[in-house]
């Protein structure tokens, strides 16, 4: 009988369609990777360390140049002020095959080392967790009054980085993670990066203008004050990385 | 004594000309008719008469006075001022200002204004130059023995002085009808007599009609005519005394 079969089909479609509408964790991860693609950008930021009692350190200023494509992401950071960090270089590269390398003015460097005496870490800025194969949805939350979807990213067992799990609260349509929590192999919270203010890129997607990076009760405030979305990365910008050993998982 | 004209069922005036005030079937009910403050009063007052409304406490004396002065609206009945019905008057405030002067038992002077300013209050917003009213106020106060109290506040005056200031205020707009509600109720006998003398003089000088509510026999004895009330009705068993 055709009528009953049709009604069953309609019922099934009504149940199936809403389920199909919600993206999976893998799809959200792909969206986040895509949102970060750029042939070249330059930004200048100021970072201030905040002590638990509210004391503010002398601000540091640094410039960052980056290139993120489908297979590789790399950054070079240069200290601007104060004089102690002026022209101090840190370069870091991450490939989607899991290999990475980092260098500073003296040779190989640790991509997980804090930058310029702050709690900012170069590895975090590359967001490699979006390439991990183990992505899962973990509900929803609100950050600074904005709704976001929780995505849990777990490192593969063969991966060796100190960060084993990342919980991101993302606004996928805006292409931004409003809060990123990084955990070690024991499940302890290592860093909490929360977006305070955003700015709109020419694509319409959002980028963080001001973030706080919290490590236990200490925080660093990082604010971008200048930038160029269409930066023409000069040849040799990432020269410091050439010849450096790559660590692959 | 003048006898009531009981056959006519109302209290007439003493002359045959148009009465200054007339009421027919005047009634004021509250609580859907359960409380009858006044219940079918017919009354006439002639020009220049001094009429005292008398009766026990709560019989409706002040209610009748308020209705005459258009401070309240009756439930039924009609009021006429020189044959003009109140219900046809567009603006009762204008009517009060032009034709009625009020004197109250508790004076009702504005405590924050001096005597002169209190007397001038009824003229605020009225037509006519302010200077004219001021002159008239000063004359009245001089006449009433308050020329040296112009800037005094009511709290610094004696009872008699306050009532005289209130009388001056009542007369500032040269009314035709003076309504006085127990004007001597808050005064001692000497001041009361003084106030009554004043009212009589003013009445003679200006041809004023006075309707006064009182429960004091001494006061009512000064009236041309009494209007006795009992339980909201005319007390037809009472005698009218002069």
């Amino acid at each position, binding site marked *: 009988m055709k009528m009953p079969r049709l009604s069953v089909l309609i019922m099934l479609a009504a149940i199936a369609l809403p389920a199909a509408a919600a993206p999976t964790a893998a799809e959200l991860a792909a969206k986040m990777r895509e949102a970060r693609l750029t042939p070249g950008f330059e930004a200048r930021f100021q970072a201030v360390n905040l002590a638990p009692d509210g004391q503010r350190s002398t601000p540091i200023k640094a*410039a960052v140049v980056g290139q993120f494509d489908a297979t590789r992401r790399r950054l070079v950071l240069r200290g601007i002020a104060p004089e102690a960090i002026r022209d101090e270089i840190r370069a870091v590269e991450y490939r989607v095959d899991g290999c990475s390398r980092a260098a500073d003015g003296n040779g190989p460097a640790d991509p997980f080392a804090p930058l310029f005496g702050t709690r900012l870490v170069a590895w975090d800025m590359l967001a490699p967790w979006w390439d991990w194969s183990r992505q899962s949805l973990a509900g929803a939350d609100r950050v600074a009054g904005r709704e976001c979807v929780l995505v849990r990213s777990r490192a593969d067992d063969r991966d060796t980085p100190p960060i084993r799990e990342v919980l991101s609260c993302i606004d996928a349509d805006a292409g931004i993670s409003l809060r990123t929590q990084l955990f070690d192999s024991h499940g302890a919270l290592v860093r909490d990066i929360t977006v305070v203010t955003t700015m709109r890129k020419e694509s319409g997607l959002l980028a963080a203008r001001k973030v706080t990076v919290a490590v236990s009760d200490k925080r660093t405030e990082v604010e971008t004050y*200048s930038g160029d979305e269409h930066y023409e990365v000069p040849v040799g910008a990432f020269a410091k990385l050439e010849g450096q050993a790559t660590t692959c998982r | 004594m003048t006898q009531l004209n009981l056959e006519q069922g109302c209290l007439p005036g003493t002359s045959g000309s148009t009465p200054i005030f007339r009421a027919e079937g005047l009634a004021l009910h509250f609580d859907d008719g359960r409380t009858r403050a006044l219940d079918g009063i017919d009354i006439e007052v002639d020009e220049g008469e001094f009429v005292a409304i008398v009766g026990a406490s709560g019989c409706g004396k002040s209610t009748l006075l308020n209705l005459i002065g258009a401070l309240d609206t009756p439930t039924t009945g009609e009021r006429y001022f020189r044959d003009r019905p109140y219900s046809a008057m567009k603006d009762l*405030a204008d009517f009060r200002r032009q034709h009625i002067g009020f004197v*109250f038992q508790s004076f009702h002077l504005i405590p*924050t*204004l001096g005597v002169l*300013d209190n007397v001038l*209050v009824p003229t605020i917003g*009225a037509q006519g130059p302010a200077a004219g009213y001021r002159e008239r106020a000063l004359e009245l106060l001089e006449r009433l023995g308050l020329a040296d109290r112009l800037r005094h506040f009511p709290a610094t005056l004696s009872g008699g002085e306050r009532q005289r200031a209130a009388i001056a*205020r009542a007369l500032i707009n040269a009314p035709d009808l003076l309504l006085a509600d127990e004007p001597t109720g808050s005064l001692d006998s000497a001041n009361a007599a003084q106030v009554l003398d004043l009212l009589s003089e003013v009445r003679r000088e200006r041809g004023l009609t006075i309707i006064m509510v009182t429960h004091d026999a001494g006061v009512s004895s000064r009236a041309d005519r009494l209007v006795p009330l009992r339980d909201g009705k005319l007390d037809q068993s009472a005698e009218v005394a002069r």
Partner: protein
Amino acid sequence: MTLFEFALHNLRQRPARSLLTAMAVALGVAAAVALTGIASGFEASWQKANDARGTDLIVTRLASTNAMPSPFRAEPLQNQLRGYPKVRDVVGLLSEMLSVDASAPPLFVFGWTHDSYLWQHLKLVAGRWPANADEPVVVIGVVTAELLHKKVGDMLEIEGRRMPVVGVFESSAAIENGAVLMTLDQAQQTTDKPGKVNVLNVKLDPAATTTDVDAIKARIRVEMPGFIAITSGELVGQNTVVRIAKAMSNATTLIASLVGILIVFNTMLMSVNERTREIGILLALGWHRRTVIQLVCGEAALLTLAGGIAGVLVGVGLTWQLEHLDLLRGKIDANFPLSFLLMMPILAMLVGVCGGLYPAMKASRLAPSHALRQE
């Protein structure tokens, strides 16, 4: 005694209440005046800067939601624009907000094409101008010099580069007086934006008409997708900071008005309730109901007029103080059109009348006989 005198007398009987109400209104008016003056001044100052430079049109990227339009390569567009009719000159400009001293707030740093018309309106008060496009030197505005306590020969550190101050200038535009100026080449080098600008300034022939301007704008829309040509007034009007400032001042005015109405409503309602017997006396003595309304609304209007006048004075004074704060010096150039200053007390009076209207109506509807019986 007139109605006005009676109203004034009544306000004086409750001096504390009248003063507090007037002060509350004054605070609201002051906030609205200060914000509006600052927003208006900011807009005017930006406009003045462009007008002072002699720029007729500004070409920049579309949809600039940041305070400064995002940078772009100057040369291709510059050459293209120079070929348009009635275009006399096209000059690039780079603007950034950078901190140049640890003790001072961030300042505007402008990079102007050396030897361009942009420099002509400035007046040198000390030192000299950059000798050529490559000279790594700065000239500073008079307000900057005062703020940073710098003079000719001192050094400034900008984005890690130490550059000597070779001149101090004065401009008719307040924004420029609080800025640091260098050649475009030096600004591009300092901010790592080689060959880039965020604004192209177009100077037209003096004979160019509005029709010519519109034609150029239309042509740019078609031939340079992603870019827009606007007059300085339009740019300022689109500027997010200006729009936000104006929106904030409008919102403040609206909120202050609503709060003012509520405050006056409360004050006059209390006053009317306390004066029930007095109002009954007035009605019994022959006052029109409309006269009672005029009295109550008049009292409300007098209160708010006093608050409005005081608020204008406080608002202007407050803004003057803000202008002279180190943090804001050179960034605020408040503008108070006379019509606006006159309008605020009138608006305050209107607020008073609105707030006093219901209490006035309530007072006028009192039954005199009932009112006289109140204590």
